[in-house]
């Protein structure tokens, strides 16, 4: 595992594209025509669930069940949005989602920076064993150990509080791993020079290492935010009142209370919940794509 999971900081130090640009031959032009012919339908198929969410949210209740009604809404009907916002406290959910995701991220950035630096740049006994123990968390995430974690949080008296949704995620084996890879790529001369100037480890970490691994920090931030913003199982298990629920949980409740009948309102709710991240994605497309793209490249 060690050898294959590796992260290359996007931007800095990426190897030059090896492919030479060649004059496009007739052959390749025909090939790309064929490709479009296949890719366009497949792409449309992939987008159709999203299109369905948005289109249904603009329909009337009757239209959804009418087999004669077309794919597009007869008239744009925005009434579902205020109706959805009125049945559940989406504002509270939004604030909770921001607080939970933000706290997890801040906690993670602190813990992984310190741990990754130790693993990448310091010598100490049991280093290998400890690193393996960190990776254990990647293999057994909350989905595998939610039951006994629930018991622990119950004993701490944290059930139905915001911290319950935060504390299990403050340490990140994956983040430590990712950042360690980047720290290892920082030239030793840089930290040696700082060393000679009398800087301690913390100063070197702060002034030399962190500025150099910014692309990795951004990539980790994006992955962490996407993951925890969308988290469903754990927040579902540890919350039971509206004042601590997050957006995905609120959406799930909406489905339950409507017993699946009112698809227009449900899809309006879905649009509200998915749009913040999708909006960020559209704006910072390159950053998002790069972050996810380079999580696997050696």
């Amino acid at each position: 595992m060690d050898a294959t999971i590796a992260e290359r900081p996007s931007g800095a130090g990426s190897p030059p594209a090896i492919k030479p640009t060649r004059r496009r031959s007739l052959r390749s032009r025909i090939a790309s025509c064929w490709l479009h012919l296949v890719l366009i339908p497949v792409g449309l198929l992939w987008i159709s669930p999203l299109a369905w969410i948005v289109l249904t949210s603009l329909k009337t209740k009757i239209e959804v069940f009418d087999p004669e009604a077309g794919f597009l809404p007869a008239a744009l009907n925005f009434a579902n949005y205020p109706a959805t916002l009125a049945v559940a406290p989406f504002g509270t959910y939004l604030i909770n989602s921001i607080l939970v995701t933000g706290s997890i991220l801040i906690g993670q950035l602190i813990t992984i920076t310190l741990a990754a630096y130790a693993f990448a740049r310091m010598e100490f006994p049991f280093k290998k064993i400890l690193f393996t123990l960190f990776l254990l968390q990647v293999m057994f995430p909350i989905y595998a150990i939610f039951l006994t974690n629930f018991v622990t949080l119950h004993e701490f008296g944290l059930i139905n509080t915001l911290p319950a949704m935060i504390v299990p995620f403050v340490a990140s084996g994956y983040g430590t791993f990712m950042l360690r890879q980047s720290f290892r790529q920082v030239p030793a001369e840089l930290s040696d020079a700082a060393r000679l100037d009398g800087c301690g480890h913390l100063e070197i970490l702060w002034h030399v290492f962190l500025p150099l691994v910014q692309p990795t920090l951004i990539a980790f931030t994006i992955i962490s935010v996407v993951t925890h913003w969308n988290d469903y199982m754990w927040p579902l298990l540890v919350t039971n009142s509206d004042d601590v629920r997050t957006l995905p949980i609120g959406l799930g409740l909406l489905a339950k209370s409507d017993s699946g009948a009112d698809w227009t309102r449900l899809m309006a709710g879905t649009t509200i919940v998915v749009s913040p991240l999708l909006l960020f994605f559209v704006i910072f497309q390159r950053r998002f794509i790069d972050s996810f793209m380079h999580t696997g490249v050696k």
Partner: protein
Amino acid sequence: MSQRFARARRKEALLAYAFLFPSFLFLATFTYWPIIRSFWFSLHDVVLGDPEIFWMGAENYMRVLDDALFWKVLANTAFYTLTTIPISILAALLLAVALDRKLRGMAIYRSAFFYPVMIPSVAAGMVWVFLYAPGYGPINAALGAIGLPHLDWLYDSDLALSAIVIMSAWKYSGYFMLILLAALKLVPSDLYEAARLDGVSGVQRLLHITIPLISPTLYFVVVIGILHSYQVFDYVYVMTQGGPADSTNVLTYYIYQNGFQYQDIGYASTVANTLLVFMLGLIGLVALTLGRRVHYLGEK
């Protein structure tokens, strides 16, 4: 001199432990302790909130062996993992190979295949319940339009789990595609050129050049796929609640049922332990089979 050196080393080790401490504190509380506790609980009768637990020995494990539903749930979990991962990786590989060139509309294609990763699992699950709806769902409407019979999808115990597999492939292929695409970009194109001039066909080039060269990344994607398969809990919870007739009940959901609905924490822990062993076994198997065959570029 050497004494001073030893002291400096000791000082560095202490500082390193201090750096590891915050992470370790949280890992110990929310990862190691729950795993240890899960084994301890499986040997006991445990009631939530009751500090007293009763020793049961291996009784819970005997119960698991006799539990027909457990074996069904285990088979469902294996089916889900062993279909979702190959299907999504195959789709991802084909898409990545198709997109690994200069192509008009590249950014649009990439986003179109990738966006499902960013949709919360609960939202994805709900939309697909709608898409699969037997009466008015668009999938059945589309099937009807091309003259195929309507299917009951999530209401058919033979189809429900496959329906969740299809949905998962839609959700994850784009992510795997991106990772594979990044690997393909590093394959030197003169290799393809040489093979093409030698008259090697496209399929053979894929099998004998592309796949071996990106095998470390493929292996990584398989591991990521296994880790993402945990998320099936969300889809089962939102889409089917394990039904119909437990045809979509998977290990994580069965743990939830036993622990939270029947309040039997001892037995739920026992099932949870089988999940840990299942995942460990799966990852171990992949590491021993695929991991061994991985080729590294530039290595003999």
